């Protein structure tokens, strides 16, 4: 599968990645090359094969419903790019 410029732009938008106009052709080429590698999978018949989501065939472990975490707001917000009134700040969200 060979990706076009528009494909790259669409994927970059979905992934929220700024890609400069001039880099798009290079990404298109690289991604196409990776997809060509990946498409070798198509040669195998996988009819009826159960997909393997995880290396271990085990069940989810459950934890007791207990409050174990203390407030560490100051520590966590010390590394935040922008806060005010203990809130994380982002450019205005329009709903």
């Amino acid at each position, binding site marked *: 599968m060979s990706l076009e410029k528009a494909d790259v732009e669409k994927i970059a938008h979905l992934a929220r990645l700024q890609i400069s106009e001039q880099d798009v052709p290079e990404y298109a080429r690289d991604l196409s090359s990776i997809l060509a590698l990946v498409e070798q999978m198509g040669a195998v018949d996988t009819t009826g094969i159960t997909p393997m*989501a995880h290396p271990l065939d085990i069940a*989810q472990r459950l934890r007791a*419903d207990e409050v174990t975490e203390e407030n560490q707001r100051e520590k*966590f917000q010390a590394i935040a790019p922008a806060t005010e009134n*203990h809130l994380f700040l*982002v450019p205005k969200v329009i*709903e």
Partner: protein
Amino acid sequence: MQWETVIGLEIHAQLATKSKIFSGASTAYGAEPNTQACAVDLGLPGVLPVLNKEVVRMAVKFGLAIDAEITPRSVFARKNYFYPDLPKGYQTSQMDHPIVGVGRLDIVLEDGTTKRIGVTRAHLEEDAGKSLHEDFQGMTGIDLNRAGTPLLEIVSEPELSSAYEAVAYMKKLHTLVRYLEICDGNMQEGSFRCDANVSVRPVGQQALGTRAEVKNLNSFRFIERAINHEVERQIDILEGGGNIIQETRLYDSDKDETRSMRSKEEANDYRYFPCPDLLPVVVEPSYLDEVAKTLPELPDIKKARFIDDIGLKTDAADVLVSSRELADYFEVVLKTSGAEAKICANWVIVELSGALNKNSQNITSSPVSAELLGGLVKRIADNTISGKIAKQVFAAMWDGEGDADSIIEAKDLKQNTDSGAIEAVIDEIIANNPNQAEELRGGKDKMMGFFVGQVMKATQGKANPAQVNQMLKNKIFG
């Protein structure tokens, strides 16, 4: 053209756990911003989720209560999208294998008939944080306390055909989740909220019309108004020759209208895939049996019992089973008093609920306990006091003056059943009102009420009206 409304509801019930679905942070409502957002809730690099046991139990409990299939291996998936209240850039939810499969819920329609509504599925997921739009120099503030709060999303089939049915379904679920003690049902705090998929189609048409999803419905009144509004809007557009756009609309309760959420219009591609940090949730049959044993008597069964075994009318039964606490209260009154169900129901529904409403209390905060009220009803039933005196006793109990017997004693409110004393009073009243007595003898039955009233007045209400009635008849017609 005749139009038909088709509604499907997605209800988010916040599960009443102490800690979050994947972390040990508290879920308590109303805390200072970001004080209950731990490293896992913040999605810091390197953190991992571990599933809360109670969340699974609650979902299974719900599933059993709606006769649903419980998925033996349910799977958490990631729903990927960017939003500032979604710290990890994905919501951990369930997609292909929800923990609760197809179930059902019966609602009662306006004409008293029952309609069965299919529940498509119910799945577990984490809640997002909150965006606060006060003006921080044109910025939005994010509070992640709510991020990671466990939700059970209950999805109905598109089988509701009016706002009334939608509300009935939602109320029914609201009652159910509180019976099961898996959700506090507090709609103001957002613990129980609803999105409605609404569409219309010409009567007789099979295919569904294009739907709009109406969000932000956090009261029964709003859901009714929002759906009615949305139905009208769609019919107006269609009758004007237009087309409905599939979109998300937000209900604005202040303006009583729905408006398009432009920011969410962009076609989403959520790229769901199984969450590699979580393993399949395995539910064994023995576990189902264990949870089934903890199910309370469910509202429909309780209602049937109240009607068939206890002898209540449908209306009274409906009111009493609307909350588990109210039904339990009633049953304690019934048992303590040994009185007829009807009088017990009447006291709970009319007198007690009236007083609670007036004083902005609820059944769990009632100053008069079920045992106390039962003690009062018992004294009505055994003729110790009249219904009228009982209201006086109830008021005193409400004010904390003790139980019915001690109030009756202290205030000397016991009914006077001493026939000698009553006879003396009757004689005196007949003597003082000869004309009226003559009229009564002459067949003017109305006068009976006059004489009973006079006797009750003279005895300060303590005589037994039935006894007075009988004695008067004997005297006059004797």
